[in-house]
């Protein structure tokens, strides 16, 4: 399946050999174009290996870029455009998974882990602050003889 996708991507990319956004795609209105670029950077090219449609050379990415601009010109807001693309291709094309349902775990894992780690670190440091100073470290017999050896050597 994956190999198929790769071959497909190469086949689609080859005849065009085009570079990402083409001059003829760019909208005249810089504000709309700016929004289009923002949106395209969050959408994954469905046939490539982890590229967004803004950077991808595949024909389908070009189609998607044109589609995004079409929707923007028609007056959709950003969420509507993204929703329309997701309706067609599924959530796979979203590089930023929606913070809903199971994905909440993904979004909350970092902050939760940070809190836990800070809590553990704080308890550890409280313990360290309260601990009694250890008795002076004594050398083992072997270490002492090794130390003598070194001191003599220098």
């Amino acid at each position, binding site marked *: 399946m*994956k190999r198929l996708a790769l071959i497909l991507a190469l086949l689609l990319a080859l005849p065009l050999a085009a570079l990402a*956004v083409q001059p003829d795609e760019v909208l005249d209105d810089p504000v709309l174009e700016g929004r289009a670029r923002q949106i395209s950077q969050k959408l994954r090219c469905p046939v490539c290996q982890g590229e967004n449609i803004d950077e991808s050379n595949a024909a389908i990415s070009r189609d998607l870029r044109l589609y995004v601009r079409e929707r923007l010109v028609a007056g959709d807001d950003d969420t509507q455009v993204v929703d329309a693309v997701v309706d067609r291709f599924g959530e796979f094309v979203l*590089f930023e998974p929606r913070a809903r349902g199971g994905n909440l775990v*993904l979004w909350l894992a970092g902050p939760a882990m940070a809190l836990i780690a800070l809590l553990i670190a704080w308890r550890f440091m409280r313990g360290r*602050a309260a601990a*009694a100073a250890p008795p002076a470290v004594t050398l083992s017999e072997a270490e002492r003889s090794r*130390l003598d050896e070194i001191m003599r050597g220098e």
Partner: protein
Amino acid sequence: MIAEFGHFALILAFAVSLYQMTVPMIGAAKGWAGWMDSARPAAMTQFLLVGLSFAALTVAFVTSDFSLKLVYENSHTAKPMLYKVTGVWGNHEGSMLLWVLILALFGAAAAAWGGNLPPSLRARVLGVQASIAAAFYAFIIFTSNPFLRLANPPFDGRDLNPLLQDPGLAFHPPFLYLGYVGLSMTFSFALAALIEGRVDAAWARWVRPWTLAAWMFLTVGIALGSWWAYYELGWGGFWFWDPVENASFMPWLLAAALLHSAIVVEKREALKSWTILLAIMAFGFSMIGTFIVRSGVITSVHSFASDPARGVFILGILTVFVGGGLTLYAARAGAMTAKGVFAPVSREGALVLNNVLLAVAAFVVFIGTMWPLVAELLWDRKLSVGAPFFNKAFTPFMIVLAIVLPVGAILPWKRAVLARALAPLRGALLFAVAVMLLVFAVSTGRSAIAVVGAGLGAWLVAGAVAELIHRTGKSGLSRLLRLPRADWGKAIAHGGLGVTFIGIGLLTAWQVEDIRVAQVGEPFDLAGYQVTLTAVEEVEGPNYISTTGTLQVTRGGREVAVLYPEKRVYPVQAMPTTEAAIDNGIFRDIYLVIGDAQADGGWAIRSYIKPFANWIWLGSILMALGGLISLSDRRYRVAAGARRAAASAVPAE
């Protein structure tokens, strides 16, 4: 014949590693000096044998011996010599051979310079190291043999992927592997210490140079990869949060945490069990990286042709070593008691916070990288996690890290009064605020990234300078020059991080992009520069055909640069690549890319102004340089462990 010789040498190395992982271990357990000491010649022999094997494969590539399947699949007679040599590791099998070569190199280095280690510890370190090597030799010999012959040698090869035909391939993978594999040394030290049941300041002092070296190599490797992507991929991105990039970034973050926690073990005999755990995890993540690249479980631009059998084998290796390491850890960690007493506000406390931030940041990268796999397994959902997620979830930790770093670095050990510790940093704070105001003033109406990035970067750089001044005291230049190299290394590495922050912040916020159809001879404006396409020519390269544009860049009538961006087609692989042309500068890069000829005349041209781009890699190089200077500190050069008692009596900071 030479190939068979190489294959045989590899099998012999496997046999030696089997010896080295058992006999010295038994010797250490029984206290037999001869058995223990045999680890050293074994490690040397192993390195020699893998070296011969690697040399044999290199000869096959250089002489274009297409009777070898690997050479046929990845080389071509017309390929320039540089890429014939680097092509040895531009494929799965060859890169694994490079991996074990470096593994054996580290083993041999530990054998050569481990003279002052206690014999039992040395034997165990080399034993663990050999067991890792044995696992990977088996992996190569049984699933990824680079020396397979073809029954009917073809006339010519299929050439190397054109994206890899770049000087970047000569340096990026070797440095990256030196880093990945270097972490195997810290892993071996951690396991040996667990087996010995003893972790003390001396152990930390032995292990820190290896960690430092691995981290340095990893820093250089990642920076080179990022720079390569910047100029090769044609739109000048420097970091993509691709799974394979993440795979190298996680060990980097953990190695950075390990470097800092080992300081606490060395100086204060605390955080021992955490440091051991970090050492196990750091190498564990290196192996997870290998697994991700080679198993194909996660789609990435970097993946080698993947094969499920290999994935399962590496997963097995990963499970045995990380699982084994963690089991041993669980059994023995209780015995490692902390000795140093310190208050939360102290250098130790700051280093604990450093570790929390770096480890949690690595965890965020990990969960983001693995999440698509998790979602597919649990809910059968196909989803993606990419740059927008990581930018939001990861960056906050780096911001907090940058705010705290200069303060933590200057705090005294054991117990600190925050207000007093902050006094030397007043100038740095003032400077950082001034930089923020300046950046804010020249970039009104833009995002906060520039202000935050440049402000934090300036704070880090100025903080590092302030710390050096603070350590010098009133005695002036001569004292400054006599500061321990570790202090210099620390300041340079921390300052380097700041330089990288400035680069990332300003490049992200201030980049100017222009996409247009350019007609030959008609200038266009690019953020104050005039760019003119003067000619487009077809040029034939050694193994490609290039469309080369000539673009003249002027400013106010004066010529700034003439640049030659190319669009190449490699006929053997039938694959196009873009070669951007870049005019490098300290404060900006001019980055030009040529696209297709347009139907109604003219060429698609993409041009960028990339402000402060080079600061990103300059900062990385400074970080690595800081590591190198620190590594050359007297404390590590002079009989590292032997001087333990003398050195710990003198507070070196």
